[in-house]
């Protein structure tokens, strides 16, 4: 996956709590056997009506927000199904950073593993950003090393992130290679539990 550290992008707000993965990527698009190409289907039922026409009242259909790279949303973002197609779709569409007060556990893990930085801010900070970003063209600067989010008019916020996830994101590491680089400990565990090794 691609490393991420300093990132500046335009912001799109979706002021809803509990945005579930069925909304992020409806199930009819889960049938592909590739990882790419899901961006066109992101938030499909909110973006398109039953005839496939763009819904005028959905923010991503506003040309001023269509190129946003940072998504700000309400609490418990990504709840529901474990489908990794959700972060694949967000990333493929162009979102590199998500900001919300909280995330569903599986979605959070899935995001990190695809190089999406899911930033947790307080309810008040997210509320501020939801308001600020309702004006088109609003930009935020993210610095993962410093764990900070800021804008050009005085907003700054600090966010917490697990040091392990931070390292993975900063380096863009492939987790399987990391695990297998120290395969001995797996062998030792297998020896202890199963009385034999499996590699």
């Amino acid at each position, binding site marked *: 996956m691609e490393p991420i550290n300093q990132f500046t992008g335009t912001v799109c707000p979706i*002021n*809803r*709590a*509990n945005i*579930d993965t*069925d*909304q992020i990527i*409806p*199930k*009819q698009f*889960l*049938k*592909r*056997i*590739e*990882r790419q190409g899901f961006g066109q289907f992101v938030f499909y*039922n909110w973006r398109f009506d*039953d005839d496939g026409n763009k819904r005028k009242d959905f923010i991503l259909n506003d040309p001023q927000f269509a190129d946003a790279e940072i998504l700000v949303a*309400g*609490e*418990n973002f990504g*709840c*529901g*199904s*474990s*489908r*990794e197609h959700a*972060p694949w779709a967000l990333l493929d569409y162009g979102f590199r950073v998500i900001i919300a007060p*909280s995330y*569903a*556990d*599986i979605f959070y*893990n*899935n995001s990190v*593993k*695809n190089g999406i930085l899911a930033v947790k801010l307080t309810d008040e900070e997210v509320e501020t950003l939801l308001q600020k970003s309702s004006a088109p063209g609003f930009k935020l600067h993210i610095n993962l090393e410093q764990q900070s989010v800021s804008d050009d008019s005085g907003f700054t916020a600090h966010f917490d992130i*697990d*040091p*392990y996830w931070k390292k993975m994101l900063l380096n863009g590491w492939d*987790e*399987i290679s990391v*695990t*297998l680089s*120290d*395969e001995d*400990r*797996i062998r030792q*565990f*297998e020896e202890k*539990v199963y009385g034999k090794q*499996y*590699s």
Partner: protein
Amino acid sequence: MTKKTVIEKIWENHVVSREEGKPDLLYIDLHLVHEVTSPQAFEGLRMNGRRVRRPDLTYATMDHNVPTINRHIVNDPISKTQMETLKQNCREFGIELADIDHPDQGIVHVIGPQLGLTQPGKTIVCGDSHTSTHGAFGALAFGIGTSEVEHVLATQTIWQKQPKTLQIKVNGKLGFGVQAKDIILAIIAKFGVNAGTGYVMEFTGEAIRSLSMEQRMTICNMSIEAGARAGLVSPDMTTVEYLRGRRYAPQGEEFEAAAKAWLALASDEGAEYDKTLEIEAAEIEPQLTWGTNPAMGSGISGVVPSPEQFEREADKESVRHALEYMGLQAGMKLTEIPVDYVFIGSCTNSRLSDLRAAAEIAKGRKVQDHVTAIVVPGSQTVKQQAEAEGLDQIFINAGFEWRESGCSMCLAMNDDIVPPGKRCASTSNRNFEGRQGSGARTHLVSPSMAAAAAVMGRFTDVRELAGVNQ
């Protein structure tokens, strides 16, 4: 000796490595695989020249996409490709597969327990959030994403931060006509869809102890709808007796030894949890969701709430939006809501006891003319057992369709779709917008409540119908 919860005991038995500043590396005892979330993982292995480390601990089936009318006619070519891809991957990597023609085929969370693959003390993962179902056995079972599926295939381990523990205590005895589904829906309605985020839940209390294994599965299945990746019940004699004689469970003397070890895994008396929430079983009535997440529900005697009843602006907005999507007015009695479709099935409620409960209500009654009602058994085995008892005939005589096993209308990835604007009484687990079809309106209920809705043509307090049969 420190008193421990079942969660901590299982965790400690599986830590491969623990280092400061890192999650723990956990060993996985059982990896279940299905066609939708695995193709990219196998592709990743191939691209990197990796193999599956423990095919002997990996078991696959196809369930999400499979047709439930004629099993061999897959109309959607992309579904077909996904099923074919799983077959090829299992062949290439040496994984046992219950494919569409196999007598063990079924919903992955139905067949794991049924075959005895699911056992107390195991760490179990699957690329599916309802893996929490297996927690009913006192296993630590949770859903993972496709990158994690690939990681488990390659290393048989997963990086996990040790979760906090949340005890959900269900006190007292359940009232007449109240089922396991009602308990979990009531828990989610009371504590919310993210009450369990960051936690593993353990369900305890008299009401939980008295439940059968299948009922416990229904409850653990929906832990994820309360935000908890995993939910479990400490093993007891109910667990042991369920597993005795199952194909993949230990046999003979080995079983007795295993049973002893399983029982020892139960949470110690006085073990501490990071948080405890309690609910009184006697207060739970048959439940029904009215909104677009599983917490938007109440007892059947209730009414559709008004957005103004909610304190936070965000909740008001969510409820307003949900009522609009669901086509409901605040103040309407829940028993006045009509239904067009009824779905009895899914990893939540498609086991033999679920079908029996629904059949009891359906027996001697007729599905209303305007209602399409389908019954989809959780596995081929459940289907056969139900047929041996004559449940299929009860359903068919009442006007239900009797189908082949699969995930079906729970997520409508096959042809079983609720049309836009139509309202479905569903025994599944998610009432999200569009879940059962674009524009479809889902109300989550227990199997007997679903059957009652089918024969009445509207939601009904099942206790009124059940009383008549008694």
